[in-house]
């Protein structure tokens, strides 16, 4: 048999192209992102030097962009694991080109989101108090434990299905070869090895779902377990989970559209994938709106004075432009575009997804700031104006995400090659068997009279 190498043609060459031949533009973009991240590092160093006074946070608004971005980034992470795990569990064959993209989002944004509370501390060394003097009844501590568990689970869930693809890169002699040798764990594709991999993936896709749900529920508890007006709500747990899945699906759609265009993956990311995911996005828009309506109706009906201060602050006060923009971005635009098959095109889906990402960021801002600006205390309404430091750290987080994704795509295929190949060989048979198992039995031909 002929030895394989990076020059040997591969059926899925398009999936290997970003690794074997990334092109000059790739390096220019990496350079630009590194410059943004370096400047962000300088801005953060200034914050370390001068303290949190360089931010817009002050009494009573002691949480601002950092906590908004923490919740936002962790929310997007739900896309990956939940969608990948749920689609695998439900054996949706159309998942094959999507799962790894989704899982990579999770791993990267979790790391970025998890750093934000440390940035918000001002003095990062104070994080060590969690280990020496942690208080178990604090939802902030529950957050640390749950995010650590989720990050671990999602990284393992990303890595294990990558092993066969890493072996392909190893055998093609792609550099750095030692990396692929190290990560491939001796994969040869034997029947026994496939059984081991399948068993591990089956366990992980079941385990990762409750962990993912618990993470955003526990994040909601850092708000809901207080008695701040606008926060102390029993609906926050499921509301946050729904919001996380919503923003996560939008993030995957944007990434799919970008990758399809940049790496010419039209043969793998087809209209049907966008159609199915955009219908999921539409459903999530409706569920999100239901939760939002329920949340505000309940607060309004109770007419408790402190709650109403926060309510009117959002509906008609200083935060009204952000609130109504959120409603437009999260409900009016996506429902308007995605309900209609004529507008549910790839450009339409891109507009709807970007609107949802903006809307969900605004939702986090609207949850965090107005309640703090209007506490149950005889203060005048607080003011929060984010500074250059906070904007730059937000942009830096986005740059780190893009860079992380690009680095991943440079070394590993973003679409699972072995799952695509498995799908080519097995999907039709699997789906036919499944359909036959639940279709009604045919009448025997003699019984027609």
């Amino acid at each position: 048999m002929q030895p394989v190498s990076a020059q040997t043609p591969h059926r899925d060459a398009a999936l290997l192209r970003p690794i074997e031949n990334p092109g000059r533009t790739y390096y220019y973009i990496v350079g630009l992102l590194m410059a943004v991240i370096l400047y962000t590092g300088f801005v953060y160093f200034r914050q370390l030097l001068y303290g949190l006074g360089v931010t817009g946070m002050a009494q009573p608004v002691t949480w601002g962009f950092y906590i908004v971005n923490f919740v936002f980034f962790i929310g997007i992470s739900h896309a990956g694991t939940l969608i990948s795990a749920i689609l695998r569990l439900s054996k949706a064959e159309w998942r094959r080109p999507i799962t790894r993209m989704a899982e990579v989002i999770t791993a990267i944004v979790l790391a970025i989101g998890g750093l934000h509370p440390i940035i918000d501390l001002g003095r990062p060394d104070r994080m060590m108090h969690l280990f020496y003097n942690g208080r178990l009844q604090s939802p902030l501590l529950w957050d640390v434990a749950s995010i650590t568990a989720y990050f671990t689970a999602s990284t393992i869930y990303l890595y294990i299905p990558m092993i066969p693809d890493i072996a392909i890169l190893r055998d093609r002699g792609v550099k750095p070869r030692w990396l692929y040798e190290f990560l491939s764990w001796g994969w040869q594709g034997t029947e026994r090895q496939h059984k081991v991999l399948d068993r591990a993936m089956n366990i992980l896709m079941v385990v990762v779902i409750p962990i993912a749900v618990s993470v955003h529920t526990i994040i909601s508890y850092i708000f809901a377990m207080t008695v701040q007006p606008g926060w102390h709500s029993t609906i926050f747990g499921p509301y946050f989970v729904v919001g996380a899945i919503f923003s996560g699906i939008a993030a995957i759609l944007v990434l799919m559209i970008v990758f399809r265009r940049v790496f010419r993956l039209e043969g793998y990311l087809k209209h049907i994938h966008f159609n199915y995911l955009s219908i999921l996005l539409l459903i999530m828009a409706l569920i999100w709106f239901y939760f939002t309506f329920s949340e505000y109706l309940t607060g309004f009906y109770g007419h408790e004075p402190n709650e109403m201060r926060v309510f009117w602050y959002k509906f008609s006060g200083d935060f009204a432009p952000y609130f109504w923009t959120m409603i437009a971005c999260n409900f009016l635009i996506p429902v308007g575009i995605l309900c209609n098959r004529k507008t549910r095109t790839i450009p339409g889906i891109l507009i709807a997804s970007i609107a949802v990402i903006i809307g969900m960021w605004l939702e986090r801002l609207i949850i965090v700031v107005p309640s703090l600006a209007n506490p149950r205390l005889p203060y005048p309404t607080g003011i929060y104006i984010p500074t250059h430091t906070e904007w730059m750290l937000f942009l830096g987080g986005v740059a780190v995400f893009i860079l992380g994704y690009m680095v991943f795509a440079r070394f590993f295929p973003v679409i699972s090659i072995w799952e695509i190949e498995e799908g080519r060989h097995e999907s039709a048979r699997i789906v036919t068997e499944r359909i036959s198992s639940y279709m009604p039995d045919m009448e025997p031909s003699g019984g027609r009279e």
Partner: protein
Amino acid sequence: MNKKTIETFQILSISLIWVLFTGIAVWIVTLIRESIRLHDTPDASVGISIVAIPVFFLLASVLTYVFFGLRKGRNRDPEPQETPGGKAVGQG
């Protein structure tokens, strides 16, 4: 880098994961003991924390199972095997 070195680093990385997760379990147990000593924790917090420990060990176990399972499932025959990707692979 030769195969022996790579295998050593692989086993080291698996061991480090167990060390890390054991450290996390010890941290959670320390928190539980401290909160019981201070009489300041609802039972739910303790219960949830106790559930977290097996989750970490389950994840480490899955990783270890895959690692040793793949080693055991290797074909000792020097002839390359076909993968579902249609590509022949050499021995790992």
